């Protein structure tokens, strides 16, 4: 399937661009992370600490074990600092 993958804050800086279309068979967010981390050194740096990685699937906050079936957009970012 084709997924829109978005990056924010220092993940975006490490990856080098804010979004990309990714073709993947990943079943979960965690599988997608593994695929992305293996793709470029920038991606590897962006995903080097899964403990601080946050994600949203189709604009809902979720976790690495979330399934991707039917998903269209996955976003990755560091812990949020709003307010």
């Amino acid at each position, binding site marked *: 399937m084709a997924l829109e993958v*978005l990056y924010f804050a220092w993940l975006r800086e490490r990856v080098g661009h804010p979004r990309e279309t990714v073709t993947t068979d990943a079943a979960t967010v965690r599988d997608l992370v593994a695929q992305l981390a293996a793709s470029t050194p920038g991606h590897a740096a962006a995903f080097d600490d899964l403990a601080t990685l946050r994600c949203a699937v189709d604009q809902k906050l979720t976790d690495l074990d979330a399934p991707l079936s039917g998903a269209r957009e996955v976003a990755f970012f*560091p812990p949020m600092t709003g307010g």
Partner: protein
Amino acid sequence: MTARVQTAPFDLAAELRDFGAGAGAVVTFTGLVRDDTGQMAALEIEHYPEMTERALSDFGAAAAQRFDLADWRIVHRHGRIEIGDQIMMVATAARHRRAAFDAAGYLMDWLKSRAPFWKREIARDGSATWVQAKAGDEDALSRW
């Protein structure tokens, strides 16, 4: 009962005009850019445009139900914000003060660590540092 995300400054007085009619208690929280080091030029806030406003609206509605609010409002800025300027505001209106206070505190604790904003401090020399999330902000959320 509105949530807005914008780059422009907001005017608390204008936001509160006709806010919470019929309520007995109105609480507001306003967050301002603070320069702790004396080296900061501004704050820059990035957000997730496709997600932010709806996430804020959904959470405001959840708070309204939980605390039986007569009214609520969230305004959060993004982009570059100067020292001393307003970053965001929350307002809550309820019959009694405890609900208005609790709802505002709840919304703030949620905004700090669940709303898709990321702050970066811009120093006077042009260097930029992403603000780290505080462990205390997660703890604050677990109160609710």
